[in-house]
């Protein structure tokens, strides 16, 4: 996977590069619109992460240029101008997704995976891990053909943990994913613990060993 990061904030670009490289993506960085324009003309990228607020270029123009390319790279807009109109404008011009700054790298990764599945026409939306089946389109979870009934939030939680398996997810990252649409001034709440507790209880009846590990003072990790 070859990715172009178009971002004029150098340290943000390098953090993105650092994260994505570890996730086995190959990254190029363009700090200006001109550099980005040259790079997309020459190289064949699978993903373009595009910051709309560039010093020398209007991000949307770059979006148009990328849309004219033959191989149709996936484009995710990353911007601090998070109004509804901006979002609609970006998506209507052919961007595949839109992430308002500040965003979580984990969220970015999830979105990229979703786009990839769409792009390569992966029909199956089922994740299978040691007998645990999670269907993200019908939102059902089953283990060895017996269905586990979860609430909407418990499902989201399990799905997110599974997508980032073997990685510590902090309470805040989980909270943001689950209540992202609600402006939370209670960033220090323990509601997520209640959800995890309930999820554990429900899984315990089916899943033999305790996969869902608590990392004291930090968060949770699904170790498989």
């Amino acid at each position, binding site marked *: 996977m070859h990715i172009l990061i178009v971002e004029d*904030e150098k*340290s*943000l670009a390098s*953090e*993105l590069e*650092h*994260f994505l490289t*570890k996730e086995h993506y190959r990254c190029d960085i363009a700090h200006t619109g001109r550099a980005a324009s040259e790079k997309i003309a020459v190289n064949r990228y699978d993903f373009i992460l595009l910051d709309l607020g560039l010093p020398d270029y209007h991000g949307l123009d770059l979006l148009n240029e990328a849309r004219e390319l033959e191989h149709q790279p996936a484009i995710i807009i990353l911007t*601090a*101008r*998070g*109004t*509804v*109109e901006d979002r609609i404008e970006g998506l209507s011009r052919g961007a595949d997704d839109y992430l308002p*700054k*500040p*965003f*979580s*790298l*984990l969220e970015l990764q999830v979105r990229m995976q979703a786009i990839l599945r769409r792009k390569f026409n992966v029909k199956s939306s089922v994740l299978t891990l040691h007998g645990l089946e999670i269907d993200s389109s019908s939102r059902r979870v089953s283990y060895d053909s017996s269905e586990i009934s979860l*609430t909407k*939030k418990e499902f989201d939680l399990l799905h997110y943990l599974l997508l980032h398996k073997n*990685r*510590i997810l*902090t*309470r*805040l*990252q989980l909270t*943001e994913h689950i209540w992202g*649409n*609600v*402006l*939370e*001034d*209670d*960033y*220090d709440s*323990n*509601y997520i613990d*209640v*959800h995890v507790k309930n999820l554990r209880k429900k899984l315990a009846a089916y899943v033999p060993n305790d996969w869902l590990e608590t*990392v*004291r*003072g*930090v*968060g949770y990790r699904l170790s498989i």
Partner: protein
Amino acid sequence: MRLQSKLTLSSAVSKVVILLLLVILLPPLIHRVALHNTDKRLLEKKEQVFDIIEERGIESFISNETDDMYGSYNLLKEEFISLEPIAAPQIDNRIENSYRKVENEVLEYRVLSLAFEVEGGTYLLEIGRSLSTIRETSDTMQQYAIYFLVAIVLLTVFIELAFVKILLRPLTLIIWRLQRIGHPDSFKPVKLGTTTTDFVYLNDTINSMMVQIKEAFLKEKEFIGNVSHELLTPVSILQTKLENLLTDPAMPEEMLVKLVESQKTLYRLKSIIHALLLISRIENEQYLKNEEVSMKTLAKDVAEEIEERVEAKRLTLDLNVTEDMTWKANYSLLFTMLFNVVNNAIKYNKPGGTVSIVGRNTDGGYTLSVTDTGVGMPEDQLPNIFNRFKRLQVPDGESYGLGLPIVETVAKFHNILLSVTSQPGSGTCFSFLFKNP
């Protein structure tokens, strides 16, 4: 009391005082004038009498032999003239009030007495005019004068009333305009059509001040928006840096705990920025209000979203929205508004308590209320709960949340009447009145 009324009243009072003074002073004055006129007439009559005596001779009135006296008075005894011979001129030429007996009736007269010598004899001439006649005249004059004065006072008061009204019309207009300004945003400077320079000055000053206030408001709004926006990029950098460190497998666990602490601080900053941006965007009218929002659905959605929190705190959520109403609004803003209030009701509740959401048609519209059985707030805190960054004493320390300011901003944006009542120790009730259009 309005200036116009005060001005009219004060002028009326001053006129009445003048009128009273005149009523008191007029009788003696008129009496004196009447006496003066009478005296003048008596002197004229005296001249006439002398003319007649000169013409006809004193004998035609009094013959020397008989030593008689002459007297004449008119039928109603209003006037009399008498002539009599006297021994020596003891009496001076004078006019005075004195009593005279005429046909067995004693009357008071104004009498001119004059001693004179003619054809060797000394005579006393007396010309009198009844005082009651004089008084009658002066009374009549007085009466007319008072009628006249009252009429003048009334007339001038009415003229002044009209005049003051016309003169003060620009002021009335300025006040009328000021009363119609709900928020400095809605102010539009208007020129005043008057020649009264004071009012022109007043209007110009108000105009320029309101424009300044309006600009300050706009700048503040823009400032908050711009600053929040500018802060998002550095926050974004910090967040990705922290996440990269957190995903580093080489990171020892005690370092992870510290990183999570930093992440908490960063999320606090993030939520403040998001809240300010949200408020700023609402205030700048960047949201549409074109969705038909059903109150029943709204309450149900919020209840569902928040259900787990209710369970986590072992509370009971009582959703009692049987009557429905649709309201043209922005659904996600209304959701945030109700969510924040219900969330507060959960947060500050007592163990085993209840949160009830009640929606029903009321006078003038539809009322949605959220009542908790929580700790409540003292009355003096109520006015501050919607202030941004006003620190409030809450059970878990201090709240610097922007949750309630957001609630207020959303309510204001939608013209929803928001009211709060609270009883320390027994609970708080937030109610939203969606007014009938």
